[in-house]
Every structure is written in C-alpha cells, then in structure tokens.
C-alpha cells in the first residue's frame, strides 16, 4: 500500500524534482506537495484504487500528513478490504 501511494504521489503530484525520491514520512503539507486541488486529485485516486469513499470530515491534516498517515487512515477505515487485497 505504501509503495502504491508513494508512486502515485511521486509521479502525479510532486512538482518540485528536488523533493524526489519521496520518503513515506515526508510531510506532504510542509513540503507544499499537497494543496487544496492536489489533495482532491489524491482523494479521487484513493477512492478508485481502494474502493472507498472519503467523507468531508476525514479530509483532515492528520490523515493526509504523509504517505504513512494516509496508509494508517486507510487501514483503520477498511480493515476487511485491506486483508483481502493483501
């Protein structure tokens, strides 16, 4: 899961080549990788890739701070799905 999300963010959302390679714990907010529009792009990707719906109330800094926190959020939300998908 970390690899999939890291690859997507690295390829689609990182605008500054100096931020690559992207570490899973790098702050997506302080580095400026996520802004209001790239956040939504990421949400659409997560919803399609992992078959979930991200509610407005989950669109919070603590969930989207880094690749690691995004994965923690997804695991907490969809334990069953995560198990079947490996």
């Amino acid at each position, binding site marked *: 899961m970390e690899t999939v999300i890291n690859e997507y963010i690295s390829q689609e959302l990182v*605008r500054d080549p100096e931020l690559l390679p992207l570490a899973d714990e790098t702050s997506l907010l302080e580095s*400026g990788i996520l802004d*209001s529009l790239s*956040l939504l792009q990421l949400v659409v990707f997560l919803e399609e890739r992992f078959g979930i719906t991200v509610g407005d109330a989950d669109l919070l800094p603590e969930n989207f701070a880094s690749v690691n926190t995004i994965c923690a959020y997804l695991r907490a939300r969809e334990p069953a799905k995560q198990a079947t998908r490996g």
Partner: protein
Amino acid sequence: MAYLLQRLLTEAAAKQPRRAAVASSGCLLTYQELDELSNKMARALLRRGVAPGDRVGILATKSAASVVGIYGVLKAGACYVPLDPKAPGQRLSYVVQDSGTALIVADEARTPQAARLLGNVPRPLGVVVAGPAGTDGREQAGTAVTGDTAIVPWSEVAAEPGEPLTGERSIETDLAYILYTSGSTGNPKGVMISHRNSLTFAEWAAAAAGLSEEDRVCSPAPLHFDLSVFDIFATCRAGACMTVLPEGAATFPVSIAQWLEQERISAWYSVPSVLTLLACYGSLRKFDLSRLRTVIFAGEVFPPKHLARLMEELPHPRYLNWYGPTETNVCTAFEVPPGHADAGPAPIGTACANTEVFAVTSEGGRVTQPGETGELYVRGPSLMRGYWGQPARTREVLVRSPFRPEYDELVYRTGDLVSLDPAGNYIYVGRRDSMVKIRGYRVELGEVEAALYRHPAVREAAVLPVPDELLGSRLRAVVTASDTGKLIRQSVLDHCRRWLPSYMVPDVLEFREALPRTSTGKVDRVGLALE
C-alpha cells in the same frame, strides 16, 4: 491632499490607532503598530539606499510581516514587486532582473533565497528581513553579509524610529507595484500599477463590498495575484481587519470552514475554485458562518452548478461577481441574486463607478443589443501605466478609443469577448487569443510552449487547454522530440517544473512523430483539440 496608498494606513492609524489592522498566525498588529513598524521599515530601506521609484522585491507569504514590508516600501517612495515564493528560481530570477530590483524584503526563512536572487544583480542593495515574525520566528544579530549581499535582520529594522517620515516621496501617478503575469512570448510581463490606479479600485471596492471597521476580511490570494490588493488596501480604506488564512488550513476545505468560523470572517474574496471546494467538501452546515456577510469571487467563470450549491449551503451572504484583468483592476461587477445560479453563469455585470466599459464587434461597431458579441474595452483611472520595459506591447493594448479618435485618453483592450443580456449586463463569452485561466491564474499558452522549446530535445510543441470544471482548464502538451528514449518524458516534465510555476506545467504530455498541419502549414490546433 496626497493621493497615495500609504495614506490609507496613516489616516486609519490616526482615526483608530488601537483597532486591529492585520491578524496572521501568531501575530496581531493594531493600526498604530502597523503604521509605526512600516515607518521603521521605510527608514531601514532608505538607509540601505532605496530611492524614489526603485523597485523593491517582496519574497514572502501573505502575513503581518509582509504587509509591514509593503507599506514600508510605499512610504520610502518605492514600488513593490511581489516575488511568488512558490515559483521556480529561473522565473524569479527573470522577474528580479527584468524589473531591475536591487533590494528584496523577505521573511526570515526566505532570506538565503533572496540573497541568491540578488547574486546576479550588478549593484545589490541587500536583503531586509520582514517582521515581526509569527510564532516560529527566530532572531539574528547584526547585519550579515552573504557573498556580496548585505542582510539586515528584523532586529535592526525594529530599532529604527517609528515616527512618521517627513515629506512625501511620491505622487499619485508614480508606481505603487508591478505584478508579473504570464506573457505570450515566453517570459512573464510586468503590469505597472500606480497609486491612483490602485486607489481607484480600493475606494470603489471598500464601498461596493460595504466594508466597515467592524469587518474581518480574508482573501487567500497570494501577494503576486491582484486579488490581494483587496484585502491589503480596501480593508485598510475601511479601517477593517485583514485576516490571513494560515497556509496549513488552506489545503483542507473543512479546515478553511472551521477557520472562517473561529476567526469570525465577515468578507471573503477568492477565485471560484476555492469556493467550489468549500461548497462540495467543506461541510459548511456544520459550522457557524453567520458572520460571513459578503462573498466575492473573480478571476474565472464560477461553474453555475457549484455556485448554486454554495448559495444553497450558505444562503445569507451577498454574492458578488467581480471582473477585471490585472491591467485594469476590477472594472465590472454583478451582485448574484438568490436563485440566479440556476439560470446559467453569472454575468460580469456593469461598469464600476468612475469607469466606462464598451464592447466592439469584429466589424468595428459598438455592442448594444443582446446577441451581439464583441471585445471588451475599458476606460478610467484604474488602467495600468503599461508593461514594464515593453512600450511596444503596451501600445498593442492601450489604444485610442475607436469611437473617440480625437481624444488623447487611452483605453484598454481586454482581449475578452462579451455579449449583453436583456438587463444590460455584460456576459463573458471567451478569449480572442490563446490565454486560458487555471485556478484564476492567467496562462498564455505561448509561454508554456516557449518553456518546452527551451528543452534541448524538443523540436516542436503545441499546448492546448482542456476544459476542467474545478481548475478552469488543464494543459495538454503535444511535442515532437529528437530523443525518444525512456527518460525523455521525465526530463521534459522536470524541465518545465524548473521554468514554470506549478499551475503552468502541462498535466498531459504526448509525444508524436510529427504535429498535424493545416493546409497553410500551421500547426492544426483545432484538429488536435478535437482528437
């Protein structure tokens, strides 16, 4: 009385010294404090050798400190040039060189970047650190020198006397700021705005938005975007409080909504895409936004579906659609009545006070009836002085009125096509040329193509806009290259990211053997767009 932007501040400070002028993360300045700190800043700038008419860069996010910097520059009789902290170094270097900037006011964190930017300037006057710092500020001692560039710490600025400076150093036709915007020939162009140009807007805007000293005003637009002129100067005109949305909160729609409630924001001004995000993802009904009285948007067409949703979620504020290129400031306005959004895009409306607008058909006649389409022209005291250092390009857009050739007064050709609705409001139809809007930012397709051509392997490039509901447009680049290796895509994208701000980097990059041609040998853009 002098007709100068900084007088808005000195007058508000005399009238209501203890009212809040600017609130940004961890820092609140009263009008008296802002007035005194900007006096100190002006003295520090004069001490470094800034002379009337000089251009002074501002490399900072919007904050109490950068507002101190802006008023300091104006009080020193100079003109400020916002430098987008998020723009690539190459572009910033171009702006610094083109404008002849020799001194930069920077936030503490951006001091090294500012010193680097001045590295290629023949006689740099130095970097002056803007303050007071917010919650994470750090103090430095004494003027330091990095390479050839002197750095004046905030502590040294703060030690200057805060009393008013004697005498004025500028008059109303002097430049107050230069805003760089996308240029079709490959480099950004500097729009020169005088004190009178900006004051015309600030006076009108404060009245049109109904601002009073009770208001708490926010615009998330950065300093290099002309929407920021509203929250800096119109707010001051009204003696209201300019409130800065923290960078961290701006990313998350729910955080913005929460912040609007917490800060009791009463007037908001932004591009429609931010409001669309708030309407769709902001959970607006969960927050008490009853204080929000006025919502203003400008910069691009607000998709009617999303505007309708916003007005449904938040029915109580007034909704105002403002229109005007950077070159004219806002020149038309329309108040959107409840229920209107279902009828289609909001009109751009009618001319602002003390401004005339008219539309000219391709046959040279005046648009007077619904159904006719023409290019919008603007006349009035808010028009720019011209493009910095580009008299030929200025003459292309600042022209004699086609209907009053005997007048010397120049009018501005917007390049925007408009028509009229039955009520006499202008309606935006589209562009005459190849400029598109992305998140409200102007993007000249030619500038993106010019950046692609700078890549050594790129032979030909065509950039096309793809309509996008949220962004306005996305960019699709079709190129032919001499190198077809695996790494070429990444190399071209990296190259674009070094030259262009992120909203101008193509979203889609396609490689072709050849570009399709029309019978006259031109790149077939229409055919490409239809693919």
